[in-house]
């Protein structure tokens, strides 16, 4: 088991390299970062050139990538343009934990991201929780009551939910729970931000403001997983070993929740692991609509200003999160499935 984990971790490292190279190439064409720096206009051509040199943007792409990766404090750059490299570099590179400095705010990238990361994290965690617990309940229920009226309704609803664009869910739920509820004099949900500025950032406020964003992020995956869990559960319930368990005279709940669910959870674990990118994508749209101060909005803001270090930092973080999450999934899978656990 220990060796398996190490093996998976080692596989993740070249993958992240690959991702970083692809992203870096894409970054190179994202618009001129100097032109939009901090909103100031750089008018003089010499200033412009100097800034480009300072940022290393005049270097060929592989050099820029190298600097980004391992830093440039071991070499000198030519900032004044006289052809002699005289200024020692200050960047230490991603591998040593330096993601550079935001071109917009002049703050270290890690700090910029760090301010927003927890906000996105609580959204994601809450959504994952809602999705997994909710779809397990619904999926198992409709598998056990296959072809019942409620099962048909659930199946139809989950098909619709699965096809919903996130923004439509978001706007619709905002309109119903925010606008209409308010109009009807019912207790209504807040639609903007993380907390009411007058009430301050209390836990209750944040939770209250989280309801709609979490709902929006969750519905698609919730619908998809319910369908998936239902079909997996049905398949497992038709297996010979379930018949064996019943022939042994085990109580029904033990057959369902021990014998069936443990097997059914195997494919589900894989899907949960693969879907993190989807969920993160949903968070971008959701954060934008609900004005949630998370990574998604940070990303949109900084993309529009061509703030390469921040954009690159966010993307790498997300890629890392996805890779790590997948490894985690594999480990959980191996832990659940003895056939894999004992293989190597």
């Amino acid at each position, binding site marked *: 088991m220990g060796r398996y984990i190490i093996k998976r971790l080692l596989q993740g490292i070249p993958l992240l390299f*690959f*991702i970083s190279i692809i992203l870096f190439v*894409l970054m190179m064409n994202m618009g001129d970062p100097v032109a939009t720096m901090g909103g100031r206009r750089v008018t003089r051509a010499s200033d412009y050139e100097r800034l480009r040199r300072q940022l290393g943007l005049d270097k060929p792409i592989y050099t820029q990538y190298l600097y980004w990766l391992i830093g440039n404090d071991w070499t000198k750059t030519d900032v004044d343009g006289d052809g002699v490299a005289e200024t020692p570099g200050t960047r230490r590179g991603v591998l040593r934990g330096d993601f550079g400095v935001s071109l917009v705010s002049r703050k270290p990238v890690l700090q910029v991201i760090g301010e927003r990361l927890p906000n996105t994290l609580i959204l994601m965690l809450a959504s994952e929780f809602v999705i997994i617990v909710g779809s397990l309940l619904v999926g198992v229920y409709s598998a056990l009551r296959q072809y019942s009226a409620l099962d048909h309704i659930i199946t139809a609803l989950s098909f619709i939910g699965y096809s*919903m664009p996130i923004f439509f869910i978001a*706007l619709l739920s*905002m309109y119903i729970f925010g606008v209409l509820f308010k109009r009807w004099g019912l207790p209504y949900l807040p639609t903007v931000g993380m907390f009411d500025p007058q009430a301050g950032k209390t836990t209750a406020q944040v939770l209250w403001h989280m309801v709609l964003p979490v709902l929006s992020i969750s519905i698609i995956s919730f619908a998809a997983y319910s369908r998936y869990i239902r*079909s997996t559960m049905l398949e497992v319930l038709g297996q010979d070993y379930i018949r064996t368990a019943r022939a042994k005279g085990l109580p029904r709940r033990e057959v369902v929740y021990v014998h069936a669910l443990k097997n059914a959870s195997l494919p589900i674990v894989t899907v949960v692991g693969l879907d993190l990118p989807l969920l993160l994508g949903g968070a971008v749209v959701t954060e934008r609509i609900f004005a949630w101060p998370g990574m998604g909005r940070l990303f949109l803001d900084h993309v529009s200003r061509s703030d390469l270090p921040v954009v690159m930092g966010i993307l790498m973080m*997300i890629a890392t999160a996805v890779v790590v999450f997948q490894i985690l999934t594999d480990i959980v899978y191996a832990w659940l499935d003895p056939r894999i656990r004992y293989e190597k």
Partner: protein
Amino acid sequence: MLVLLFIYAFGGALIFPESYANYTDTSLRLSPPSARHPFGTDTIGRDVLARTIYGGQISLIIGLLAVSIESLVGILVGALAGYYGGFLDSLLMRITEAMLNIPEIFLLIVMAKFFGGRIPEIHLLGRVFSGSVIVIVVIIGLTSWMYLARIVRAEFLSLKENEFVLAARATGTSNFEIIFRHILPNSIAPIIVSATLGVANAILAEAYISFLGLGVQPPTATWGNMLDGANNYLESAPWLWFFPGLLILLTVLSINFLGDGLRDALDPHSRAV
């Protein structure tokens, strides 16, 4: 259902000329649905109904074109990786895996910036399209081929060991011909299913980035960019976002339905994920 939506988007054009969709009547800004404007008017007084018709055309076309690109890239990558194996396979699959690990929407946004604003407007069939339509088609195609590539690769891996392929090889058929004449036709079922579902995803992808303001640029309407900024009018003009959103939902829903049906009909072994 799908047919109805196509009729809506393309037949509707016979009733309303395109100029009507872009016709600005500032005296009628944000008027709620009425007999003259069944879906209401938008922020500068354009008729929402007419715009959903023309937007629908663009959205559906984007969906179909993007899937063509997606299929082209996906089949090519999958076929090459699956057929030749070895170094080429591991290189292509590492790239595929790397792309899969970045959420599609982030890739789309970055790509939209990457290609953004360089293509001029296009005149075709007497109509003006924003060049961004082409950009969107290309980037959606380029960010969505990975699943298809994996499916095609898996098909190729299993099919290339079959006798009929060995026989073709023994008779000296060229690799090109084996790939496209012998193996590909045999793996067409999962490709069709995946491409069908791909149309739904492409329409959604267009909607997402247009919604974020990075997609198709005005005046060309799509269901997605009609929603851009709609949350500012969440309360005052719900018809602005409701109708385009509903149309996207219906389209995606019916395409998914079709895809599911196709899967059951063509490929009974696979399971919905």
